[in-house]
């Protein structure tokens, strides 16, 4: 049997009924959502089923949607069936104030660092992970930097005068602290004469 998006959807609906929601196919990839306590059950079924065989975890990450009340964090799994060469995307949403999600490390060894990375940047607490500590950021960090409440600095702000980083140039033009690298007023006149 050749797997198609329809047959996968049918198999999953047979097993889980209407517990799986938000069926979509953006750019041809079957996407669906489940309750967060169901994530391991769904992953296990996708892994073990003799026809589905989604045994390769391509990617695991999170997305922050501050506007969705009580479902702010989405954990996104990209799974790949290498035999039939078909990919699916599976999501669970969790409350940001209680971001507990079951860890997939028992199914996929590769989930280990990917979950650590997701914890590191979004603070998703993967229950059952063997070593859930920060991986790319420093251990002392107290916040989860990829969340949307931490915007990147506005590059056009003018209240900051750090010439070392090439900013504040407009302010520095009339500034007394002109350094040797810039052309001072007198030199400019000299240059214009020539």
């Amino acid at each position, binding site marked *: 049997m050749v797997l198609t998006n329809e047959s996968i959807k049918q198999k999953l609906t047979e097993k889980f009924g209407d517990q799986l929601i938000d069926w979509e196919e*953006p750019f041809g990839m079957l996407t669906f959502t489940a309750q967060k306590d169901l994530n391991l059950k769904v992953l296990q079924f996708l892994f073990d089923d003799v026809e589905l065989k989604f045994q390769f975890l*391509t990617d695991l990450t999170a997305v922050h949607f501050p506007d969705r009340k009580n479902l702010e964090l989405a954990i996104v799994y990209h799974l790949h069936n290498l035999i039939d060469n078909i990919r699916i995307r599976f999501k669970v949403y969790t409350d940001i104030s209680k971001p507990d999600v079951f860890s997939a490390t028992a199914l996929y060894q590769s989930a280990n660092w990917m979950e650590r990375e997701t914890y590191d940047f979004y603070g998703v607490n993967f229950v059952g992970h063997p070593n859930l500590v920060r991986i790319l950021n420093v251990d002392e960090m107290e916040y989860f930097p990829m969340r949307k409440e931490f915007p990147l600095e506005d590059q056009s702000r003018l209240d900051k005068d750090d010439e070392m980083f090439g900013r504040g140039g407009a302010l520095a033009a009339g500034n007394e602290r002109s350094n040797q690298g810039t052309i001072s007023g007198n030199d400019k006149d000299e240059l214009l004469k020539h």
Partner: protein
Amino acid sequence: MQTSEHIKLPQGSLEKQTTTLNFGPTHPATHGVFQNIVELDGERVIDATQTVGYIHRAFEKIAERRPLYQITPLLDRMNYCSSPINDMGWHLTCEKLLGIKTPKRVDYLRVIIMELARISDHLICNSIVGVDSGAYTGFLYVMQYRELIYEIYEEVCGSRLTTNIGRIGGFERNFTPQAFEKLEKFIKEWPPVLKEFESLFTRNRIFMERTIGVGPIAAERALNYGFTGPNLRAAGVDYDVRVHTPYSSYEDFDFNIPVGKTGDCYDRYLVRNGEMWQSLELIKQAYKKVQEFKGADSEIFHADVPEYYLPDKKDVYTKMEALIFHFKIIMGETDIPAGELYSAVEGGNGELGFYLISDGGRTPYRLHFRRPCFIYYQAFTELIKGGMLSDAIITMSSLNIIAGEMDA
């Protein structure tokens, strides 16, 4: 028992049976900035812990503020041994989101650049495996020919290592006759060099003794660990993104996927070598296809997408529309369509994926990179456990861990 608990012996004193060795973050043999804390019994590795993130630069966060075309320079700094593949992967992702269909000539030119990048990537990896097993000659010898590849990049985009090559929809300029001349030179001069490189290593008794059976991984474990690329194929799984989900017209080409069997360092070396030959074949085929374009077709180097592809500079000064598009592109004021997609290319180390969510704004809402290095490096402990320390070093270089890609 009671007393020994109160006596705090210094770490590494005689009573401790094993030695802890800090290998990295800046050690010549790691070829990158990452740390391994290795627990040794004599010279045998009994455990290892990896610390990564020393050059984490928050590319995913930075990308959330940048218009699409400004994200490319970030990607150059991921796997810097084959940055053109990263760039092309990103352009292909954007084109998929924007629904841009690139002309065939652009696809073939991209294949040439991507396969050149693959050769330079594998070349570094294999020659470094040689260096770590004590054979410096091969490395010095082939670097001269990697230079030929870099000269082609230089001719096409103006830079060598962090290339920022190509644009959304095609290339920034057409390939010059000099670029094709240099490509011909490479096609002619490269095979004997690769042949000689192989004769230095492939059946070299010392090299074989050092690599056969070192750092092996079974296919099943490799899949479970998320291996992709040459490292997975060395374990015997013929998964290649170029074949499974063809992009950039790879389906028009005739090429083989070399696979290994045991997944040890020697098989990884052989697979990479085999891939270099296949890449050369692909370059030859693509160059032939490019030459078949005649007349106006041979001048096409980008798709017609004025919203995303910068207009000619002389048009900017003379035509109103071109001026508007130029301004909008440079200032990043084009709204990109909303959508969610995952797109992958076969990078030097494996499946390089881009998970892009756009909410209809001017910058991505979320961009996540699937970095093959980061995912398979976690298997390193399992690969080296029970082996010698010197084997651990060879295993690390034959996995081709690139710190820039791992830390993003």
